[in-house]
């Protein structure tokens, strides 16, 4: 089975990752690779294990085994704060905006892990809504604004790899477009992105490569160039 071994400059290399929630074994040997500057998407049905994979990379699963190598360093035994400091930033599916912090405090919360992140001015230029509402309580923002805040706050840190879990979930089409434009901009700026997406049409325009996840493992890999030819196969995988 292809695991994207063709990537020469791997930034993130996940091998045989197993993960558990308490007793229940959810990841059964996930293997994939994300090259420097690439945008890679995990596709799969509900409950396939996409979110769990991101949690496994980030080190916030109860128990995990296997190998997660980032920029050459093995991170499988590290706590999540060390993984973050290594240069991986996480935007969770549930967004995780803090109610007891205002918008600006939410934005400034993640510490800088290395130089080269975006400045607050750059971020406010991209997200003028956030600048306007910087004193509002974080959870008083609309769903779309909260999603933007969740993405915005990890752009400051200088992390090279962004883990984005369903950034378009539940958002209006116009906001989905804005987020799509934002993600392409981020890619142009050189960020490496691992994206989880249910909205296949959204992902199709952005990603360099797709991994299809089922029952906690990768069952297929599709390069962007082969996308058109893989339509029927994908529809079957995803049940759409």
């Amino acid at each position, binding site marked *: 089975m292809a695991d994207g071994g063709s990537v020469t400059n791997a930034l993130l290399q996940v091998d045989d990752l197993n993960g558990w929630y308490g007793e229940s074994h959810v990841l059964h040997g996930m293997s994939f690779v994300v090259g420097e500057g690439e945008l890679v998407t995990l596709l799969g049905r509900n409950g396939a294990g996409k979110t769990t994979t991101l949690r496994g990379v*980030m080190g*916030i699963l109860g128990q995990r085994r296997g190998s997660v190598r980032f920029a050459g360093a093995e991170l499988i035994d590290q706590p999540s704060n060390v*993984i*973050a400091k290594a240069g991986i930033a*996480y935007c969770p599916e549930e967004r*995780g905006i803090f109610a*007891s912090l205002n918008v600006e405090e939410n934005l400034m919360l993640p*510490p800088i892990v290395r130089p080269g992140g975006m400045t607050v001015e750059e971020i406010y230029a991209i997200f003028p809504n956030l600048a306007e509402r910087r004193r509002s309580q974080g959870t008083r923002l609309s769903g779309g604004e909260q999603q933007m805040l969740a993405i915005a706050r990890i752009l400051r840190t200088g992390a090279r790899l962004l883990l984005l879990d369903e950034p378009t979930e539940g958002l209006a089409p116009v906001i989905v477009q804005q987020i799509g434009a934002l993600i392409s901009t981020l890619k142009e700026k050189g960020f490496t992105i691992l994206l989880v997406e249910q909205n296949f049409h959204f992902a199709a325009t952005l990603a360099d490569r797709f991994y299809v996840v089922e029952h906690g493992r990768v069952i297929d890999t599709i390069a962007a160039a082969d996308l058109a030819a893989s339509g029927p196969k994908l529809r079957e995988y995803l049940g759409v």
Partner: protein
Amino acid sequence: MFGIPIQALFGQLLLGLINGAFYAMLSLGLAVIFGLLGIANFTHGALYMMGAFCAWFLLNLFGIGYWPSLILAPIIVGLFGILLERVFLRWIRNIDHLYGLMLTLGLAQIIEGVFRDQYGSSGKPYAIPAELTGGYNLGFMFLPTYRAWVIVLSMIVCFGTWFLIERTKLGAYLRAATENPVLVQAFGINVPRLVTLTYGFGVALAALAGVMAAPIYQVSPLMGTNILIVVIAVVVIGGMGSILGSIITGFSLGLIEGLTKVFWPEASSTVIFVIMAIVLLVKPSGLFGRAS
């Protein structure tokens, strides 16, 4: 007024305000600890007592007076708190909060037992520092300097703590970690260390209150138990985990207790618990608590 001499009224209000100052400082520490650790820290009273004893030791063994003790005792007892967190509390973080309650209650009993065994249960006097003896005649009442100092200092400490938590970056980490420690750690913050420091800080606040209390009440192994029960009621009334709630509730309940002493002395020791019962029935999350 109501046939009560004005001197007596203001005298009791002052006593109430002093008690309130201690309720506020202690419930503040409890609230901060409860927020982040999810533990109702029943060791708090014993640590307050240790603060007072620490000042007493510093004075009687090393000749170190009140002013240095105000800094040293919170540091020493705070370090002891950090030890407690590392050795005991850390291991029960992820299980039912009831275990934390039982463990801290047990630790309090052990600490108080040791002190009672060594020093008996009678109180030891601790002199008011020379600079703060005497008082002011305000016309309607006499205000002892030391008591004025305690009220002012406790208000400064409460405001400072509120500011630290609500208005600084460190406070933002604390608030965020109170909501979602897993995500905060995944942003690169060492949450276990934040938890330890927070516990140490809450304990240091209790110890500081103990030093401030030493010249007013006596230094005795049981001083913590007596006040802790009231302070727990204050925290319940204010709302578990609410910073501003504990400060305001602490001072207010001290005053209410003082007023009750004037108008219905027999009820003064129960009035706080009556209020607690009513609040629990009407607004179980506390006056300032977020319902969750």
